[in-house]
């Protein structure tokens, strides 16, 4: 396995994802001789995992079962240990497309943070591209290096421990794209420009506050970037549910048994497959939005180096 290449069977040293049920999963480092506790019982790596096919169902000691999944950057994003606030796949998706990233791309990123975006970028630029990621926090930089190594992608990424606003990305006239997720991105625009290739490089800055965005856009303009564009993207999830609504009793119009306009015995839902389960209800399928949704992550500003 690897985050950049699919494998069929679980091997010693892999990072696998244990899936327990709806939105309940966690990563596990597969190792001979170790066990993993779950609410369904114990998973013994040597017998239950190693050699099994990814996607298999594994029965745990208490009788309950789980699925073992091949890791992907998206699953990693949902399960990684947070050292900082992270970017989720919704933002990551649009960033990847708007920066025109693909195999072979050279991309610069700061700050590395918890490595959520980093893993996605590495996956996209593999096998011939490279990620130069800059993190000013020493322990986070080291942890990131460790994780990339564990995940078999360290040959595709260079982690530098420095302040991007002072010292840049460590490359010049090379990158196809630059990504900034730092408190003062306007201070790094100059460095971003020099890291980018001569023509056509793309830049993206992610900021939670509009004031940061304003300053960044001004700086981009000053440095001659074009096609400056700010957007935000939000994910709306729907739960698929079969809903039953009761028909209200509006009483009888007269003494006889003539029904109301909405007779429950001939469902007035034209063409609806949802027939009445019982007298007095109508059933239908619905995509029900969640009670709460993420209302804001950050503004994304894109531009082109001209």
């Amino acid at each position, binding site marked *: 396995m690897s985050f950049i290449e699919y494998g069929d069977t679980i091997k010693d040293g892999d990072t696998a994802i244990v899936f327990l049920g709806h939105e309940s999963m966690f990563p596990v480092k597969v190792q001979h001789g170790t066990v993993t506790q779950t609410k369904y019982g114990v998973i013994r790596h040597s017998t239950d995992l190693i050699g099994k*096919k990814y996607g298999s169902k594994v029965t745990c000691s208490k009788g309950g079962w789980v699925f073992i999944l091949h890791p992907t*950057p998206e699953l990693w994003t949902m399960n990684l240990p947070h050292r900082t606030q992270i970017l989720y796949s919704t933002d990551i998706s649009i960033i990847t*497309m708007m920066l025109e990233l693909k*195999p072979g791309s050279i991309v610069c990123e700061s700050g590395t943070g918890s490595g959520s975006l980093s893993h996605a970028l590495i996956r996209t630029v593999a096998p011939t591209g490279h990620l130069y990621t800059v993190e000013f926090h020493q322990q986070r930089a080291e942890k990131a290096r460790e994780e990339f190594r564990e995940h078999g992608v360290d040959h595709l990424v260079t982690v530098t421990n420095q302040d991007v606003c002072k010292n840049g990305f460590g490359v010049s006239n090379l990158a196809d794209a630059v990504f900034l997720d730092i408190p003062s991105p306007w201070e790094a625009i100059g460095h971003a420009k020099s890291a980018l290739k001569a023509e056509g490089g793309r830049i993206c800055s992610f900021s939670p506050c509009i004031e940061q965005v304003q300053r960044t856009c001004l700086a981009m303009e000053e440095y001659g970037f074009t096609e400056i*564009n700010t957007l*935000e993207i939000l994910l709306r999830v729907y739960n*698929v549910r079969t809903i039953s609504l009761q028909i209200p009793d509006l009483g009888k119009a007269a003494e006889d048994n003539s029904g109301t306009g909405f007779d429950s015995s001939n469902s007035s839902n034209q063409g609806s497959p949802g027939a009445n389960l019982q007298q007095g209800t109508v059933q239908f399928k619905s995509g029900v939005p969640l009670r709460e949704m993420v209302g804001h992550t950050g503004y994304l500003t894109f531009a082109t180096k001209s």
Partner: protein
Amino acid sequence: EGSKGSRIHEGDCAVLKRGEVFKAVPVLRRRKIIFEKQWFYLDNAIGHIYGTTFEVTNGGNLQPKQEVEETTTETKEAGTDNRNIVDDGKSQKLTHDDIKALKDKGIKGQEIVQQLIENSTTFRDKTEFAQDKYIKKKKKKYEAVITIVKPSTRILSTMYYAREPGKINHLRYDTLAQMLTLGNIHAGNKMIVMETCAGLVLGAVMERMGGYGSIIQMYPGGGPVRAATSCFGFPKPYFDNLHEFPLSKVHSLLSGTFSTETLPSDPEDNALVEEDSNGLTEEKQISLQETEEEPTSEAPMEINQAEEQETMDINAEDVEFKENKEKENKENVREKQMKQWERRKKLTEAAALLREKNADGLIVASKFHPTPLLLSLLEFVAPSRPFVVYCQYKEPLLECYTKLRERGGVINLKLSETWLRNYQVLPDRSHPKLTMSGGGGYLLSGITVVLDKGKSDSSNLEALKMEEPSPKRCKVQDLNC
């Protein structure tokens, strides 16, 4: 690609950009292009770097735009608000004819804008912001600059959504972006793609795979539509591992009864192919006309000349003519047979790839109801792999979700859509833009797992486990499906 931008070559597919408007055009000499009410030739653009901005000269030629020094903002006269500004349509003293005369004289757009400002009675009463807005508006209209950009998923998906959304089932570009990431599209994958989006989705997948791995494109009717795919300008090797397979053969493949004996658009008389190619042109003519919705980038199939010949009057006395025609007929038949043999070979290869049932992912984005597509095509996907289905409408995906639950072998099902908003960011004038897309389609995504066949109980149990627990207090009767 080096650190220098790539250059515009003849034969490229390039995208013209003016403001937010895009148009894809082939770069050909002496080919008149009409774009944004201007017409011109692209000849002068050839050799320049992509991203260069041009002006259209009076002769209809392109000229790189000179970098002009922005006039330093001297404190110009401006008002404080619009309480006294009356919009009677009479504040501009230049008439349509005056402006036309200026244009005809060859006056540059910049100068026209300056003239308009000077001849506007209300300009100096406007606020600075209003002046700014006015200048921007006039510049947009009169300073006709065109940028030639290199096609990419970003550019083409934005262009198609703005210009021809019907061709791509109203798939908005951010929704496409989600599909590519959710589907973990990357180099080395073996992907199954089923789309009726003019080949845009296929192109996007190919871009993210960088020529590595393989793609099997499933297609309805006679052949896949790849109009948008050719716009990307992929190098030829990318197409070496692009296969196609007809949907109409999926059931036979799954049931094990597939054979290459009858191709989708073949007429029934395959007998000719089996026979020796000794010019049996008197036999029924085979017209291997592909039924496509749009021409693909491949050369069109040649018309059977022998067919034409039959309707021609052949001078019986012109023996030599007749002999030559017979030779041509033989060649045509041979060519046709070669092509048909090629097609069979490719079809067999594609079938073999599918039969392995180990694809790394499935992408569906079509005008068809997604459920039958998903239920059949998922059979070809390995376990623990993502799949993403796009639909313009939500309801078919509700049904799809339900059927997938019944089938089992899938987890982490999610029905979603993305909400996208663009912003205007200017000092003291930042706000969301005034118009936005009302909807960009819906996605159903999930991950495959090893399918427990024939155990409907356990799959129900799985379904219950996979579902959210029912909310504790509900005013409405709510049954898990």
